[in-house]
């Protein structure tokens, strides 16, 4: 049961990240320069106390550790269950188990693969010939305007939401957060959380495909930074920035 606690505690860290990531991405609606500034703000976190990007790197390290521990627990618990389980030759009925709970071992690896792709795509710029470092808005548009990529993002985010729907409820159960007064809320909370993450995350590929989020193939951030280099001006948001 110790591993169930590891699952639950790392799960909290991971869904916390998922929520913050989704909310942060809403800056895409403000425009390219604002999204760039948001990204810079993340690097500037804690700058007044410790060197720049150290807080961000600490967060990344914690997240990677949570991810690794979550995977390790899932792997060993699954092995334990596989070893203990025997199938019914005549088939079996499910009454309480739902689609989400029965697909955790599929949606999990799918999300894991997606995370690797997503990092390679938008953090390291491997799949994107038009990748511009420091202009997330431009990179998102360049990637998601490609239909197969947009579909892959949508599929992965549906898997993520299904995974979270069961996972968020499971956290309460695994940590023993159970009281008759609040128990009916646990499912609803998990459902609301999963739905909020789903709607937010799906809006990005859909709106890029619809042309609402678009920069016409120009990197506004690169242009402004190059212009600032030439003229030596202090950087401030331009009037009517996209």
């Amino acid at each position, binding site marked *: 049961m110790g591993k169930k606690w590891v699952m639950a505690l790392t799960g909290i860290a991971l869904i916390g990240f998922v929520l913050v990531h989704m909310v942060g991405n809403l800056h895409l609606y403000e425009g390219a320069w604002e999204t760039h500034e948001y990204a810079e703000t993340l690097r500037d976190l804690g700058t007044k106390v410790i060197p720049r990007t150290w807080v961000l790197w600490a967060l990344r390290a914690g997240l990677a550790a949570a991810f690794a521990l979550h995977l390790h627990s899932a792997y060993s618990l699954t092995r334990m269950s596989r070893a*203990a*389980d025997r199938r019914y030759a005549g088939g079996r009925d499910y009454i309480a188990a739902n689609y989400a709970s029965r697909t955790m071992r599929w949606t999990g690896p799918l999300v894991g693969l997606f995370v690797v792709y997503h990092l390679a795509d938008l953090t390291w710029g491997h799949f994107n010939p038009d990748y511009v470092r420091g202009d997330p808005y431009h990179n998102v548009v360049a990637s998601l305007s490609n239909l197969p990529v947009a579909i892959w993002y949508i599929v992965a985010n549906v898997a993520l939401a299904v995974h979270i729907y069961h996972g968020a409820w499971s956290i309460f159960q*695994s940590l023993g957060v159970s009281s008759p007064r609040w128990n009916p809320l646990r499912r609803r909370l998990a459902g609301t959380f999963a739905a909020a993450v789903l709607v937010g995350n799906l809006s990005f590929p859909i709106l890029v495909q619809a042309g609402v989020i678009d920069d016409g193939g120009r990197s506004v951030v690169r242009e402004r930074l190059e212009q600032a280099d030439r003229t030596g001006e202090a950087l401030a948001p331009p009037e009517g920035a996209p």
Partner: protein
Amino acid sequence: MSAGENGMLNVRLRVWRQDGPGDAGRFETYDVGGISPDASFLEMLDVLNERLTLEGREPITFESDCREGICGTCGLMINGRAHGPQKGTATCQLHMREFSDGDLITVEPWRAGSFEVIRDLAVDRTALDRIIAAGGYISVNTGAAPDANLVPVPKEAAECAFDAAACIGCGACVAACPNSAAQLFTAAKVQHLNLLPQGQPERWARTEAMVETMERFFGSCTNHGECEEACPKEISIDFIAWTNRDYVRAKLRNRKPTGRR
């Protein structure tokens, strides 16, 4: 239910037959006619066994004892559901009126790695006893019986503990669990003592020992909730949540202080 001629039921049974632990096993089909809708499922099997015996064939081995839903001896997977289609009912209390004339009914033993088939529908549930032996008891002084009500028990605690103690140890939770986990059984046995004053002295040792014994034999809970649906006593998975909490508290408390062996 819809009955056939004379209000009697004719059903076709697909029953798992296995000659012993090493045997591969197979389904065999039997037509059972003239069964009263008021017969229990086990009485229907008795009728079939009677006929098989008269025909000189080997009767189907299955377990039962009290036949009133309180001993936990019986337990069959009926049409893919532990204890059959009726909620909150052990196999012995399931009546043939739950079925219709002409139904095909598939009957299998409990399946889990730790529940080895002994013969046909009877499985070895010793692993559940191992969990009880690890800590499902309280220690009391010998001698004269203590005065009644010497230890006050809050009403809520008593009722909650009684809900857990309703567990008859049939193993339906393991049978219904897609992971073959025994969390509901173990949680019921742990909590029915952990909730009471009499269970406090051994609370942390009990929790750790019973949970870890469980993990030697059974799978890991993924919170499907199938066990709660299958349980003939409708024991809540809330007990599993409390046991998860007690387990971590036990691990923290049971650490041995420096200098102790």
